[in-house]
């Protein structure tokens, strides 16, 4: 989580300096991403949306590979096949159908068919998301949908985007689903581990809706101060899951200053390397 936060912050700086054209920050969503990625393990193939930077780093995408597409160098900076972390898809929810189709294709060929599809709350309004949930349910596809609900589709709040939770909607399609807070990575891990066990055991889809906070705007081109109250932004910052978890672990005596300093040094080193390559 600390590494993801550091890389994300460096990418934001690089964008301010003009080295990146755009950056979609994942700050506030680290617990959801790290918890879910660790829970499913390295085997499943991941179909991300475009903000799953912490998942990418856990899967072995190097920081310079992660930002390459945002610097206009390529459409995908990493090796999707080797890392089983497929390219970011910028047309919302298009990847949800690919994920289901891929899982079915793998099953037909007698290969590992566990697929994790990441999607945001805004993207669930797209028809493809509903079609993918229905297809996954009907075909009993081994697909875990992870919906990170950060409460905002750019400027449209989630309560103006939907009348039920995404989890309730999934249940309407016949998909087991659960809603969990994205504040605590351990709670996310537990919920996603149970979901993964269901997908593996029953060979049927599952949806985990993780409520997260969006610390920055939708992208570096977004000005969330225009449509979001100062209090709301301050509350989200105050509830930052990265600092909260680090503080908790330190309070429990599970990590000490030396450990945190070592991680800090690692992050500084990664940021420096990234800056040298792109700035």
């Amino acid at each position, binding site marked *: 989580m600390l590494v993801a936060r550091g890389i994300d912050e460096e990418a934001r700086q690089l964008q301010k300096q003009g080295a990146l054209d755009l950056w979609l920050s994942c700050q506030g969503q680290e617990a959801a991403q790290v918890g879910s990625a660790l829970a499913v393990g390295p085997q499943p193939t991941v179909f991300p949306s475009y903000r799953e930077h912490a998942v990418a780093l856990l899967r072995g995408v190097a920081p310079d590979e992660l930002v390459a597409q945002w610097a206009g160098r390529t459409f995908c900076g990493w090796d999707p096949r080797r890392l089983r972390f497929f390219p970011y898809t910028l047309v919302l929810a*298009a990847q949800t*159908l*690919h994920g289901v*189709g891929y899982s079915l294709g793998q099953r037909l060929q007698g290969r590992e068919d566990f697929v994790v599809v990441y999607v945001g709350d805004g993207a669930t309004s797209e*028809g493809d998301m509903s079609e993918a949930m229905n*297809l996954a349910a009907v075909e009993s596809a081994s697909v875990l949908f992870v919906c990170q609900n950060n409460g905002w589709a750019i400027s449209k709040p989630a309560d103006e985007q939907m009348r039920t939770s995404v989890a309730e909607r999934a249940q309407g399609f016949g998909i087991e689903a659960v809603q969990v807070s994205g504040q605590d990575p351990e709670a996310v891990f537990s919920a996603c581990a149970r979901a993964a066990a269901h997908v593996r055991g029953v060979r049927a889809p599952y949806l985990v809706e993780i409520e997260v906070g969006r610390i920055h705007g939708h992208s570096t081109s977004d000005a969330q101060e225009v449509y979001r109250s100062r209090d709301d932004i301050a509350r989200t910052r105050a509830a930052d899951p990265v600092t909260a978890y680090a503080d908790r672990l330190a309070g429990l005596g599970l990590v000490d200053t030396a450990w945190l300093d070592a991680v800090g040094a690692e992050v500084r080193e990664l940021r420096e390397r990234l800056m040298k390559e792109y700035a």
Partner: protein
Amino acid sequence: MTSTVRSPGLAESINTTLADLLEQDPRLLLLGEDIGRLGGVFRVTRGLQERFGRDRVRDSLLAESTIVGQAVGMAMSGLVPVCEIQFDGFTYPAVNQLVTQAARIGGRWNGQVSPSLVVRIPTGGGFRGVEHHSESNEALFARAPGISVACPSTGEDADQILRHAVTLGSPVVMYEPIRLYWRRNTPVRDPEPARSPTSARIVRRGSDLTIATFGAVTHEVLEAAHALGPTVDVEVVDLRWVAPLDMDTVLESVARTGRLLIVHEGSKDVGIGAEIAASVAEHGFDALRGPVRRLAPDRRAYPPADFEKDYLIGVQEIKDEVLVMTK
């Protein structure tokens, strides 16, 4: 004057080809609405589910984006999906998955994935179809980089195109004229084979004027050309593919005849004919003895069945146009 030949209908030909492809390649599967139990609304896939099973001849959900979207995922897993859209007018919900996804996956993956993915679309009018059942939207996909668009007019061509398409490594949309599915008698054509699976085919040799055409109307063009035989010697180029276009064959033909008429069933504005005319103006202007002309419907929606004869290009109109151009 017009002589015809008897051949199996297009539906039967494509059925034979699909069966053979399923037989040869275990990675290949068919995906579409009502293609399994029913054998498709045009029976193009009749008997294939019984023969190859429900895993490989899959009755899809009634959702076109689902068909193409899951096919993209299946292609990523190494399979070769051949999809069927039920009617051309129902293609539009799948356009996003085709244009922004299927067509771009290869590039997005830096060449690591080469999706061989075929979408078969019944097309065109002339059979008293209801609204949305008689359209010709091939020009839409011809503009999308990364998608190849085929418009065969015979079972033999469809066979060659399909066999090529499933090995291409990028998406192919193949338009199948509905009014040819059951038609058995068609105007005779030169037996000369195409130079390659992707090239156009000169289906009638002539010296006075070239007609470039594709799809179902190729048969009306041939009928007109044969009927004009004693007065005007018309060369007919069946393009077979509208993206990419085989302009070499068209330009070589125009170099011989000096005149070019383009005939197609899709509406004229910003259509395939415009692209061919522009290309000939750019690269074959010196060979022209007169202006390039297009014969295609005006820019309007396909009409109710009672009025489709006014919309479609008939043999008489083609003959009249040729006579005006060669006067």
